[in-house]
């Protein structure tokens, strides 16, 4: 390794130390400072010097300085070609060689884990989401059309056409964007100061411009309006580009002035705080001493001894000097006795607003710290009390409150970060899969190489979503000390539910694998709907969105249908202890549900009691049984299928069905309260189906 030049200035050292600290923070690599210093090549040192120079001029320039420093350091590092080291130290992500561990960590910090790249990724995620959404909606529309038996010639969805168009160069040249507004003839370029002959039209304003003044690109809609990412890229004149750019409103920061002005007050307050706190400590010692030593039996003498001792800490104001309380101005007399503030010595009355008794813990007998249980009451005026409180507050501030909530919330945030990292990849895969699987394309049945990968990511995402859901539920359950706390908890829960609703949507995008699991085949004839694309959408999305949110009651009917071949075996048989137990068992149960419920059935909901394991009372539920019998008569295979199920599977599905039934009941209640009677009616139908299924299983047990 090259060594730093002997003329190392103290300033450079300081800058280096700062770098080292940052590197250590970012990558959890702790190396002794001296060794790093010796390792740093001259190039990096020079770079850091430039940083420390720029660091003086404001926060923004520090940011910029740092970023430029890094790229400089990395480049030079490659160029210096300390060959051996470079071979060893390559960035695991982009493969760029680094001259030293220090430089490598710096590179990792700034290039790969900078906050900025996260932001970009998040935005990309949002845009992808839009695209996926429109693709899915297209899917729904397609499904609806197929259902109504219309021709589906125009069922290509918007994502396809858009993707094709982005590959072309200019939206207007390829005829996607209107040219009606184009200026037909002009002698000179539309830029007033420019005299050049015009050659090209601005696609936005339509003026004829010279090539030099028409160099920018914007995305335009078919009617030549500026739209976001969804438009066609078009060439526009420079003026249009400037005018359509998002105007960032003016802002002004007073933070520096403010902190400067604040320093004086804050320092004074801190000083006063420590002074009073020290007095309190000494008073506590005096009190402790007094309790131990004072043996006089006469109360007055004891008190006098204490007061004398207290006055060794703070000198008291003479009683004769004052005739009224300095805070409330009440005149002293027989009713209003004189008291002294033990912290400042001034005379005041004992009114509640004027003086308080501070509880001060006494020192322990062995002199080690203060006692937890024993304390003395010390009279203090309002002003001193305020100072004491503020000081204690300041200390309490350092320790964060509600650590449990913070911990859980951090959990949610890390899950969210995970989702934001993987979701864009997943969306891209899903769109690709969807396209290759659409009816028009001639993909071979086995030709979905992305499917296992997508399924894997999907599983990770589902886990992250489930995690967020679980944790947010726990937050909602946390004991709330105040109304504000409970509002906060439920708001976090709402935010997570909202997030899930928005981001779990794309998970439904994976197409059905070409070959369906054997267990599914039997039920196909009973429900033609499953064949339509919409029917194949998994609904695992909705398992986790909480109470009050209209989501699925058919928990994860999902996993059985889409990527079943990939992950089915692991989920369906996984029982009991894992945090996702309810999901996996519901996957199994939903399978039976899909298999069994076929024929239509009707009838009113029977009471909840019929769902308990104990046998229902015959008189109360005779009617219900009758209906079940009728349903059975209509579809005898169903009973047979249920009878052939193993008992533990029956029990599992029973639990799930009950849970679903509860939720549906909740939705019905909600729908009726809000007078959405159509919704209520359709929910009622599903409730009936659930009821029949339930009683069938119950009987067979």
């Amino acid at each position, binding site marked *: 390794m090259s060594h730093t030049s002997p003329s190392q200035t103290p300033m450079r050292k300081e800058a280096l130390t700062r770098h080292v600290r940052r590197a250590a923070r970012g990558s959890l690599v702790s190396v002794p400072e001296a060794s790093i210093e010796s390792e740093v090549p001259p190039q990096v040192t020079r770079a850091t010097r430039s940083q420390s120079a720029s660091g003086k001029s404001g926060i923004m320039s520090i940011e910029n300085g740092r970023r430029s420093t890094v790229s400089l350091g990395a480049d030079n590092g490659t160029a210096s070609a300390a060959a051996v080291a470079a071979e060893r130290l390559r960035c695991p992500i982009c493969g760029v060689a680094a001259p030293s561990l220090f430089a490598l960590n710096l590179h990792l910090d700034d290039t790969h884990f900078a906050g900025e790249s996260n932001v970009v990724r998040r935005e990309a995620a949002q845009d992808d989401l839009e695209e996926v959404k429109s693709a899915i909606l297209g899917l729904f529309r397609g499904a609806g059309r197929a*259902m109504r038996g219309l021709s589906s010639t125009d069922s290509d969805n918007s994502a396809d056409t858009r993707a094709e168009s982005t590959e072309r160069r200019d939206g207007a040249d390829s005829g996607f964007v209107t040219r009606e507004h184009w200026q037909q003839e002009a002698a000179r370029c539309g830029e007033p100061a420019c005299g050049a002959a015009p050659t090209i039209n601005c696609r936005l*304003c*339509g*003026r004829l411009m010279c090539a030099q003044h028409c160099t920018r690109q914007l995305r335009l809609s078919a009617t*030549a*309006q500026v739209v976001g990412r969804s438009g066609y890229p078009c060439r526009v004149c420079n*003026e249009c580009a400037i*005018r359509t750019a998002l*105007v960032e*409103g*003016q*802002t*002004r*920061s*007073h*933070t520096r002035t*403010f902190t400067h*002005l*604040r320093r004086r*007050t*804050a320092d004074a307050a801190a000083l006063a705080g420590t002074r009073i706190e020290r007095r309190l400590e000494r008073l506590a010692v005096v009190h402790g001493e007094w309790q131990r030593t004072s043996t006089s039996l006469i109360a007055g003498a004891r008190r006098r001894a204490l007061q004398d001792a207290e006055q060794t800490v703070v000198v008291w104001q003479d009683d004769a000097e004052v005739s009224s309380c300095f805070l409330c101005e009440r005149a002293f007399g027989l009713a209003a006795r004189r008291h002294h503030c033990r912290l400042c010595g001034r005379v005041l009355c004992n009114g509640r607003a004027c003086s308080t008794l501070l509880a001060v813990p006494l020192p322990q007998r062995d002199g080690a710290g203060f006692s937890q249980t024993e304390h003395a009451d010390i009279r203090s005026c309002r002003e001193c009390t305020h100072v004491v409180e*503020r000081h204690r*507050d*300041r200390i*309490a*501030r350092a320790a*964060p*409150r*509600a650590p449990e909530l*913070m911990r859980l919330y951090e959990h949610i945030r890390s899950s969210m970060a995970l989702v934001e990292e993987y979701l864009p990849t997943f969306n891209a895969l899903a769109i690709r899969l969807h396209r290759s699987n659409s009816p028009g394309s001639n993909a071979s049945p086995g030709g979905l190489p992305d499917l296992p990968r997508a399924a894997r990511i999907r599983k990770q995402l589902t886990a992250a979503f489930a995690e967020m859901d679980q944790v947010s539920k726990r937050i909602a359950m946390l004991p709330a000390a105040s*109304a*504000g*706390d409970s509002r*906060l908890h439920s708001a*976090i829960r*709402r*935010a997570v539910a*909202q997030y899930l609703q928005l981001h779990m949507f794309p998970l439904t995008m994976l197409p059905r694998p070409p070959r369906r699991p054997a267990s599914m085949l039997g039920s196909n004839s009973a*429900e*033609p*709907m499953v064949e*339509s694309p*919409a*029917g194949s*959408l998994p*609904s695992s999305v*909705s398992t986790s969105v909480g109470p009050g*949110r*209209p*989501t*699925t*009651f*058919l928990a994860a009917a999902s996993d059985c249908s889409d990527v079943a071949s990939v992950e089915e075996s692991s989920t369906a048989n996984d029982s009991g202890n894992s945090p996702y137990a309810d999901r996996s068992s519901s996957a199994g149960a939903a399978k039976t*549900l*899909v298999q069994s419920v076929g024929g239509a059935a009707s009838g009113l909901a029977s009471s909840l009691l019929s769902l308990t394991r104990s046998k229902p009372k015959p008189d109360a539920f005779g009617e219900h049984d009758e209906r079940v019998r009728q349903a059975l008569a209509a579809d005898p295979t169903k009973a047979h299928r249920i009878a052939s199920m193993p008992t533990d599977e029956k029990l599992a599905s029973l639990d799930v069905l009950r849970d679903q039934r509860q939720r549906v009941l909740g939705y019905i209640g909600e729908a009726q309260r809000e*007078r959405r009677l*159509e*919704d209520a009616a*359709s929910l009622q139908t599903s409730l009936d*189906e659930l009821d029949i299924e339930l009683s069938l299983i119950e009987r067979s047990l």
Partner: protein
Amino acid sequence: MDVLKAAQYYINRIITDTSGMKVLLLDRETTPMISLVSTQSYLLSKEVFLVDRIENQQRDTMRHLKCICFVRPTNASIQALIDELRSPKYGDYYIYFSNILKKSMIELLAENDENEVVREVQEFYADFYAVTSNLFHIGLVPAQHPLFGEGHSWNPGALARTVQGLSALLLSMKKRPIVRYERNSAMALKLGQELEYLMNHEANLFGTQAASTTTQLLLLDRKNDPVTPLLTHWTYHAMLHELIGINNGRIDLSQVPDARGEVKEVMISQDQDSFFKQAQFLNFGDLGVSVKEFVDSYQAKTQSHHRIESISDMKRFVETYPEFRKLSGNVSKHVTLIGELSRLVSARHLLAVSELEQSLACNEQHSTDLKALRALIADARILPENKVRCVLLYALRYERAPGNATAELKQLLSSHGVDADMVATIDVVLRYGGARERQSDIFQNENIFSRGRNIFKGLQGTENVYTQHTPALAETLEQLVRGRQVQHWQERLPALDPATAVQVPTSEMGLRSQDIIVFVIGGATLDEEMAVARLNSKLAAQNVRIVLGSTCIHNSQTFLNELSATFFP
């Protein structure tokens, strides 16, 4: 030049610049400003879990939250902030002011931040109410903030607030415009001078370079067009404001007889509600068609949801359920609103009233109008307010006509039981915006040329008798943008600083690149917003952008109330 976006930029910055669990504290005025441009769920998605008022003393202590304050720099808000800083309830404080701070305010805050909890103090100029992308107002609600001092002069508080709001708007768009004012309006001149002074004084904010020649700020005075706020308008947004009343995007339905029990208040927002965005400028007839289509499409969806025959149907239903529910809420909202509008229209016989109004506003037919007006006053089914509005229109149009019968009509009103106070507003409006006060010839009956044009217009015939009238603003803007009658408009709307030459669009250059901010002192109407929106979409390709602002958004009721509370000599 999108007012909504300008405000949203700031709100977005305020809530995303800090990460972590946050509480947002607002004051009396920033609360409605934010609720106009943002939603609860948007705030939630940006980790703002609690929103509260800074004046609220009953807030719980929550040290683990970061606190974002967005307040106007008023004395009340500064005092509330000081109280908060003296006993801080939250962890860190990030304070954003919606306007320019005084030095003394910063000092006061700094003195009281003994616990060193403040992390940021910034000015983010979102100090206006963004109603739609073309329309903003300053929030000078007549009942709380009287606009006029004595006659045609500013109430000092209102002037200060207007200067603040208008300067904030300019800062949010990074504009330093040429200021033009209506020559006959002392209020416009005064406002222009104050604004110019501020722009020079805060040169580092507004930019030191000379005003850009392509941006104009037109300061207009309502008194030059008192007719538009008096008419019954027939577009959706305007009807809602006129007949039910919109207060910062909220519509109070508690007076509506057939509103469903639990919905007492609905929100109307261009940003959130796609149906409203489409239907905002539809007239009442088209609106019926449009809402029918909307309901049909909803029903089609319901039908497909209703046919739930298999588990997969159920699955699908449940997956689309949230979307569906949102849609169903929106459908029922608009159906309720439109139902109420049509009930009011027929109950108040507004079609008959409007026909007469339009005739009074647009055509010169003295004797016919007078006859119709007498019949209208005698009609017991017509609301007294509407009778007064018609008489007002008559009085304004035929103020100088021979045989003016205003006095007789006033007597007729009284004899038909119209409240004396209401009759008295007729004189107030004449003093406020009568021929003596106006500089424009809004009725086109003052000289032989305009009479000729008027008659010519009458001969062309009209498509719809209820929507003949276009606000004077529409023509003003059209002529300014197209560079017609330049002399006339420079006479009427002189630039404040005579040295600056207003760039006149010539035919050679086309109409390119003009930004116009119109500010109406004394209240804009939603009809004028529509005129601006139409002009914007018509001239979008020419890069002409217009924004309309005002001290408040008037309907006929608030307009008359405000005037009758003022003394005009």
